[in-house]
Structure formats: structure tokens, C-alpha cells
């Protein structure tokens, strides 16, 4: 039985006139790929943004309940969100490289952590690119603008940027939804490979993807947790009717 990384209790998020999440209770375990699935607008992205407190950026968001990250409460004013985000990395839906070179995109986070020496930066950038399988493709064009890469390459660069600073958890917000099937496959292989080093929490609306790469699945609908459990059990023998409808494609 592996250790619990995130223990979420009674989490609710309310925007000005919309309840995004309603009383969510869930625990996510270490070195697993946890998939959060559900129809669009079900609050799964909001849930993910609570885990690294990016939800704070929306001044209208009102978060209640509790989230514990490895035993420490991370909601509330007193929490050092900068330290939290250093331990919980994120990859977004669309690749959002900085308007910098490929190298500088990865070095950005490293410099924030205080890495200054060129040799050290080179080494870590190379390691991150190798970890996402991009090294052979970009080794000769490291100083080119990152935006020149294809969308799929850019997204793998975003993975490299996130893991270069060695977080403990990777939050993936529909990382393959903007990509073609081949790139999607590569991203899925990457997620599978990263599982040993990181705890991965994957938000997706692609059921096949969740079924292929995840160990644990939670199904959200209308801001509420409908059902959660081991992925194989969820996809073969769902208990809730709504889950079965969604998985078999009758809804959403």
C-alpha cells in the first residue's frame, strides 16, 4: 500500500455565481497515475488548480474544505504557495513555451531555483530533455525559439520544463487534447515512463487515455465526485449508473 500524497476532504470551490466543485473527498497515492475524468465543465481543471493553488489567481474563487499534501495542509493564507508549487509541477492543456529559446525555457525554472553555473544548467537541461525523449530531436537547435517546434514537441518540452526542477508531483491538465494521434501516443508513453519518478495526476476527457495510462480513476460530474477506484475496476465494473453511461459514451 503506497503512501497518500494528496488527501482531499470536503473540498468546495465557488466562483462568483457558479459552484465549480461540491464537497469533494478523495485521496491520491504516490507513484501512481491518477486520472480525473468527466465531461467538460465538471470542475476537473479547477480541482487540479487547487492542488498547486493556481486557483488563487482568480480573485473570485472561493475555496473551502481541506487539502493535505504529504500531511501538510495547503489551503489557507499562511501556506507558502511558492514552496508548494516548487514541489508540485504542472503541464497545461496547450503548450505555453516562454518566448525564449528551447534551452532557456528549461533553464527558466532552474535559474529560479538558484542554478547559475553554465555547466550545471547544461547538464540539467540535457537530462530533462532526455527524460522526455526530445534530446535527439533538439540537441542541435537548443538556441532556436521554442515556438519553432511542432505542437507535439512543444508539449514534450513543457514536460521537460516541469520535471527539470524535480517536483514530487506532476499535474497534467489535458496534456494531449491539442495534439495529433502520434503526438498523443508519445505523450502517453512519456506519462507511463515518468510514473516511477513522479506522482502523476492526469485530467483528461479522453476515456481511452485514462484507461491506458492510469492506475486510479476518479469520475467527476457537475462538480461532484461520482465514483473513484482502481482504473481496471472502474472501466469494467462501475457501480454508479452515471459512470457507466459516461464510460460507454452514452453521456458527455
Amino acid at each position, binding site marked *: 500500500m503506497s503512501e497518500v500524497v494528496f488527501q482531499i476532504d470536503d473540498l468546495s470551490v465557488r466562483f462568483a455565481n457558479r459552484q465549480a466543485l461540491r464537497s469533494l473527498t478523495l485521496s491520491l497515492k504516490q507513484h501512481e497515475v491518477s486520472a480525473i475524468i468527466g465531461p467538460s465543465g465538471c470542475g476537473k481543471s479547477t480541482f487540479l488548480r487547487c492542488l498547486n493553488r493556481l486557483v488563487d489567481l482568480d480573485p473570485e474563487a472561493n475555496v473551502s474544505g481541506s487539502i493535505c499534501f504529504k500531511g501538510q495542509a495547503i489551503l489557507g493564507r499562511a501556506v507558502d504557495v511558492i514552496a508548494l508549487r*516548487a514541489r508540485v509541477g*504542472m503541464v497545461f492543456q496547450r503548450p505555453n*513555451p*516562454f518566448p525564449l529559446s528551447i534551452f532557456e525555457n528549461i533553464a527558466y525554472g532552474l535559474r529560479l531555483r538558484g542554478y547559475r553555473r553554465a555547466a550545471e544548467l547544461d547538464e540539467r537541461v540535457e537530462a530533462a530533455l532526455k527524460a522526455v525523449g526530445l534530446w535527439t530531436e533538439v540537441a542541435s537547435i537548443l538556441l532556436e525559439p521554442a515556438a519553432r517546434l511542432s505542437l507535439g514537441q512543444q508539449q514534450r518540452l513543457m514536460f521537460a520544463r*516541469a520535471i527539470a*526542477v524535480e517536483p514530487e508531483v506532476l499535474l497534467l491538465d489535458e496534456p494531449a487534447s491539442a495534439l495529433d494521434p502520434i503526438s498523443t501516443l508519445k505523450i502517453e508513453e512519456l506519462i507511463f515512463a515518468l510514473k516511477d519518478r513522479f506522482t502523476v495526476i492526469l485530467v483528461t476527457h479522453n476515456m481511452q487515455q485514462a484507461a491506458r495510462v492510469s492506475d486510479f480513476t476518479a469520475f467527476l460530474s457537475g462538480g461532484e465526485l461520482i465514483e473513484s477506484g482502481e482504473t481496471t475496476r472502474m472501466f469494467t465494473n462501475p457501480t454508479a449508473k452515471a459512470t457507466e453511461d459516461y464510460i460507454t459514451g452514452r453521456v458527455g
Partner: protein
Amino acid sequence: MSRSILSRWLLGFGFFLLPVAALLLLILLDALQVRMPARLLEVGPPQAREWVMPQSAFWRFGWGAQVFVQRGQADGVGAEFRWVERGELESASAPEALVRVRRFDASALFGIPVEVCDGAGCTAWRNQPLTADARLRLELADGRQMVLSGTDIAALDTLNRDGTFKRLGHWLRALAGVVIDAPRNANTEGGMGPALVGTSMLVLLMSAIVSPLGVFAAIYLYMNQDRGGFARLARAAISNLAAVPSVLYGAFVMVAFVYGLGGFIDQTFFAHRLPSPTFGTGGLLWAACAMALLTLPIVVTVTLEGLERVPQGLIEASLALGATREETLIRLVLPLARGAFLTGLILAISRAAGEVAPLMLVGVVKSAPQLPLSPDYPYIHLEQKFMHLGHQLYDLAVHAPSFEAALPMLKVCAALLLVIVLSLNLIAFALRARLIRGMENMLP
């Protein structure tokens, strides 16, 4: 489709670009002809002949029944300029011996040199260089002869004998002089040098004041945009400041800075010079302050726009990597807004270069004996009064002793001002275009 393009071009070019281009061309052509030497012509009957120079070298291609000419007569003999019938000029002769004598402190003379005398005696004039102690005897159009001292003569131009290239050289040198030299003869002769120096010093100093102020104000507004209250009020105030008539900035700076702050500085640091004021009177520093206040809204608005244009996705990516808001600002947002700040600054500069009204209250003068920039310690004299192109334009147009005499300088002044403002605007345009292209290149 094609019709809409046609109408767009008609609108764009017909109503806006063409008039602007035509005006520009007119002013530039006019200014370029200033001091362009034409042939000296002899008009009038033999008993009342007159030697004149058309004010445009291209008078043959002009229109109108009359042509404006300069009469190179002795001082006090009639007006310096007059109109001559076109037909009369067309049939006029150009005697080869005629020269133009440019004098330091009086208008030019047209005449035929007779002889040059110095300590060693007199010799006939054969275009020899004039020494300082030489005296030149010159025959004027009315038959009288005049003796000129070598120290009074700025130059002697044998315009009717010179070939095209030599005259071209005359003209280019004269143009350069008009731009560089100090003004003479109540600003109607000489050049724009001090006004150019004054204008550029003012603009530089203004940039040095407005840049940090504008950037910090924009950053403040950017970082506090969600917090309502004071920041929102400040934002509204900034936009309203842009609509305040510029002369009010001059009045404000005169009262608050010149009399208030300047008076205080004088009493504290320059008490030994009182009652003659040092900073308690208009000067370069205060004029720069007035211009900085005037252009602050432009810099703040454009910089703020640049900051806000940085995509939210990039900011989130930076924050998600564990950067603080400040680190994100310094490492990501500010570098991306650099181009916008530059654009704002250049717009501010081009506004400041053309603004005159507030300056008249806080330190610009018709004629400044010393440049604000000098080799004497402390090299930059912030308290000094200075000359300014815009003000010189106004002064020449309104206060010159003779409008005709001031006209050439007026044209040059207008053209210089226009060229400065226009090129600054073009730079801003190019920078913005480059910025947008750069962003497109780099952004996902």
C-alpha cells in the same frame, strides 16, 4: 471585395496620406531651397539698374506673375526684398563680374569688386583670398562705391562665374551652416545650432525623468489591477491627465517647481547668489520636468498596455514553476513589455519635441548667450535658459523685425522640427512592428 479595397485606398491615401505627404514635401522642398544660390541678375533701366537674386534657384519653374528677390543694396537704401515682374527677370542679364558679399553683422551686398588694398598697396581684384587687414572696394548697383573691411566679410561668392558644382558646394555649405551655426541678426541669419542643442538636451533630460517614473507607475498599476480602490482611481487619473491642455503643465511647473522648489533650493544652496535666482527661475531642468509630466500619461498607458498584453498562460506557467509574482514580473513580463515601453517613450519624445506652450513659462528664451552644454564645470547647466526649435519658429514668425528676412530661417526651422518629430514617429512605428513580429515568432 475589390471595391472595398479600392475605397479603403481612396480613403487612406486620398484623405490622409496624400495631404500629409504633400505638406511634408512642400515644407522640405521649401527648406532645401533656402540659401540655394541663384544667379545674380541685373534688372531695370541703365540709369536705375538694380542687382537682385531670386529667392529660389528654381524661379523659372515657378508660377505667379512676380518673383520674390533679394536686393543686395547698401544699408538704409530701400527694402531688402521686393517682388519683380517675371518677364523682367526672364530678360535680365547676369554680368559675370557680379559677386555676393556676405557680411557678419549686416545683410548681404551684391556688387562688382574693384580693388583690394592692404598695407602693401592696392591691386585690382582677381578673386584673391582676403586677409583680415585687407579692404575691398565694391561698386554697387547705383554706381556708388563702398569700402569694406576684411574683418566684416564672412564670405565672397562669385556666383555668376561659378559652375554648377561650385554653386552646389556653396549651397550645401550654407545648408550645413543653417543647421549648425549660432543665430545672428535677430535669429534671421546664421543657424539653428543652439536651438537644436536645446531641443535635444530637453528631450534627453525629459526621457531620463519620465522613463523611471512611467515604468514604475505602469508596474504599480499592473500589479494592483485587481485590488480596486486607489489603483483604479490612479488609472482614471492617468487617462485624464492626457487630456489636460499642455500650457497648464507649464503653469503648474512654474508655480510648484520654479517658484516653490526652485526658491527653496536657492535659499538653501545658492543663498550667496540671491537676489539673482539660480534655480528659482525658468531653466532646462524645470522645462524637462514640465515635459516629463506632460508625457507621463503616454508612457504609462503604452507601457501598461504592453504589460497587460503578456499572455496569462505564460504567467501561469511561470507561477506553476514556483516563481513569485515579482520574479515573474522581472524575468518574464518586463522583458516582453520592453518594446511597448520603448514605443511609449518615443511617442513621448516626439510629443515633447513639438510642444512649445508650456516651455515659454518655464525657461525657453529667444536667444540664450550660452549653451546648456559646455566644456566648463559642471558641463551640463541644468539651471540655464535655453533655445528651442519650436519656440524659435514662433519667435521668427511673430517677432522678427522683417518677415521677409526671417522667412528662410522660418522654413528651415519648420522643416527641422517636422523631420525630427516624423523620424521619431517612424522609429516608434518600426519598433512596434518589430515587437509584434518578434512576439509572433516566439509565442505559441
